[in-house]
């Protein structure tokens, strides 16, 4: 095992807890806990938002998907970044000016409906858990890959550190922790990639897509763990296959991967429907993720919220230049992952595979592992803070006068379910579940926010109907995908990438429902619109 990994991981946990404890010195009131007293500057806030956003799916999953499927999945990073542009254009400043803290708060401010508020709380908790479970799961899997320890301990360790940090320091501490973790994640990918590219140059620039298909660069042994067809030949579990340097990588029947032109050129076997569905889910889903929205209330005013979002867009875009390089170089240096199907590990394994088992390779390997840990810690902290915020205000009914102790109780309550779930469902596909969380957010909160901010005639009943129709359909699709039997043909496409029909459905039902119940338009809609859109400097 790599001797630098454990010290690296311990260091990340210690620095995280240390910065959390340092932040605690400033966190005294409930306001500090929930919104850092709205006094965080745009650059800190932007780094914190980016740190929180770049999850395991971004740090490990994107590179793994690119290694496996090639150019078609580049829409994931583009969509993850473009989501912030949609947020900037339609939501950022008005949402901050609304003065609400959570999405349910926004429903209350805009439509004054208690039923809508409760429905929104249900969706926040659902999306929060849907996003939190794969983070903890990814932590467990990484722990197993790198240290050989058990999956449960990895998931529990990350769960415990995150819960302690959120419960003790709240938002104020989390802001500093997450800003630090953004820069750690960027460094953890950027520094190794420089050495990887130099190594690729000095190896004589081996082709990424050789005419004969992907080949092994060094002699490799692959252990078979389940019966499959390897290059058309049946093999049994327990068998070991050895390949010489220069041998072509055979396709394995149980692993879905693209080879040759399918990998290099767009189109492949993914249909246009799936691509557009993915684009819609990621572009519009970001604004509906609870942990992303909570961050906006820590800005001092609407203009700062807008600038913060722009900086986030730049920081996130900068980060997403890197996983592509890992995916492409993984094609050259770790082709065995295409046989085992564990492509999510490419970021963790690539430094040692390309640079050899020497000191440099090991150090860089430890660095990317530390970055992966930071990814789990920061995203799950943010998610937990937002779910705890909803539990605090809507389940414990603590309101603005709730004590810090109530917030800690809420954090513990919010952590129990996802941590327990992550121990039992270790086989769910990480990146797919994260994509589904985006689809649910895009078909429930995106229409609610966009219409709520820009359309005066939205009513509470219309909003409830829209969220139930679009969000409910997406939720059902998620449950069928995760728990149901495998699907085939166009039904599978409709259920596994639901955004292309659930998002328009949500908008349609919400608009029609509002027009039918036009007498229920809130009487104070003019004042609300003024508050959402007028610059603070007017102070009307």
């Amino acid at each position, binding site marked *: 095992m790599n001797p630098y990994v454990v010290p690296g991981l311990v260091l990340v946990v210690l620095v995280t807890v240390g910065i959390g404890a340092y932040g605690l010195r400033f966190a*005294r*009131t409930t*306001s500090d806990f929930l919104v850092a*007293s709205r006094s965080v500057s745009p650059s800190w806030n932007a780094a914190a938002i980016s740190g929180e956003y770049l999850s395991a799916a971004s740090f490990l999953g994107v590179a793994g998907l690119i290694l496996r499927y090639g*150019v078609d999945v*580049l*829409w994931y*990073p*583009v969509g993850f*970044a*473009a989501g*912030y*542009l*949609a947020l*900037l*254009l*339609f939501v950022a*400043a008005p949402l901050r*000016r609304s*003065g609400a803290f959570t999405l349910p708060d926004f429903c209350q401010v805009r439509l004054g409906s208690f039923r809508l508020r409760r429905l929104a709380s249900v969706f926040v908790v659902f999306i929060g858990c849907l996003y939190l479970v794969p983070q903890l799961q990814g932590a467990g899997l990484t722990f197993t890959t790198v240290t050989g320890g058990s999956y449960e301990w990895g998931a529990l360790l990350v769960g415990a550190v995150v819960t302690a940090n959120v419960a003790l320091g709240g938002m104020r501490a989390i802001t500093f922790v997450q800003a630090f973790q953004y820069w750690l994640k960027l460094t953890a990918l950027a520094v190794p990639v420089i050495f990887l590219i130099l190594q690729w140059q000095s190896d004589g620039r081996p082709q990424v897509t050789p005419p004969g298909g992907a080949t092994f660069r060094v002699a490799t042994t692959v252990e078979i763990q389940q019966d499959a067809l390897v290059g058309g030949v049946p093999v049994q579990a327990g068998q070991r296959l050895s390949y010489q340097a220069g041998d072509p990588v055979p396709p394995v029947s149980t692993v879905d991967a693209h080879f040759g032109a399918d990998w*290099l*050129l*767009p*189109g492949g076997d993914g249909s*246009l429907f799936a*691509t*557009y569905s993915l*684009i819609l889910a990621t572009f519009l889903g970001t604004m509906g993720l609870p942990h992303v929205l909570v961050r906006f209330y820590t800005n001092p005013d609407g*203009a700062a919220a*807008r*600038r913060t*979002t*722009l900086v986030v*867009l*730049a920081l996130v*875009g*900068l980060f*997403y*230049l890197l996983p*592509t390089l890992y995916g492409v170089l993984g094609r050259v240096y770790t082709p065995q992952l295409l046989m085992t199907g564990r492509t999510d590990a490419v970021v963790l394994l690539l430094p040692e595979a390309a640079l050899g088992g020497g000191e440099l390779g090991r150090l860089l390997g430890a660095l990317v592992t530390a970055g992966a840990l930071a990814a789990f810690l920061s995203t799950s902290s943010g998610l937990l803070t937002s779910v705890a915020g909803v539990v605090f205000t809507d389940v414990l009914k603590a309101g*603005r*006068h*709730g*004590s810090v*102790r*109530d917030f800690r109780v809420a954090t513990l309550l919010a952590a129990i379910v996802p941590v327990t779930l992550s121990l039992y469902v270790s086989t769910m596909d990480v990146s797919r579940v994260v994509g589904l969380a985006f689809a649910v957010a895009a078909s429930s909160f995106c229409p609610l926010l966009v219409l709520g901010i*820009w359309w005066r005639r939205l009513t509470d009943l219309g909003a409830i109907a829209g969220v139930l129709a679009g969000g409910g359909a997406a939720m059902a699709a998620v449950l069928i995908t995760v728990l149901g039997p495998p699907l085939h043909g166009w039904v599978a496409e409709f259920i596994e990438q639901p955004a292309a029909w659930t998002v328009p459905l949500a908008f349609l039902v919400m608009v029609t429902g509002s027009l039918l119940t036009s007498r229920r338009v809130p009487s104070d809609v*003019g*004042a609300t*619109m*003024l*508050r959402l*859109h*007028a*610059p*603070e*400097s*007017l*102070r*009307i």
Partner: protein
Amino acid sequence: MAADDETPRPAPPRTRVVLGEAATRRLPADRAHADLAEQTSVGEALVKGLVRAQLALALRLALVVVTGLGALPLLFAVAPRVGEVKVLGVNLPWMLLGVLAFPFLVGVGWAYVRWAERNEQDFIAVIRRPEQ
């Protein structure tokens, strides 16, 4: 309960300041200001104008992104040969999606922040203009 375990501290309690609360405390200084605060039809029209301007700006820029990025899958499907064009040794789709998409998004965002702030400045200028 909550009151027991919180020790008294000298600092004054923090107050939440929002536009609505401020309105009750401060008397509007001029006509347009009063229109806004009292929700007259003139004030309503002013706000509607601002909302419309901001929405039009956001929609225009969204259209730029939809045509710039959203048309790509269709283009690749209709004209597969585009995928084989190479720029600096890299296939065009990789270059567009892996590298150029991000500065493009940031550029659109930068333009939006600039113009949205200008719209707000114009709105403030209308409210604060001297009475004729």
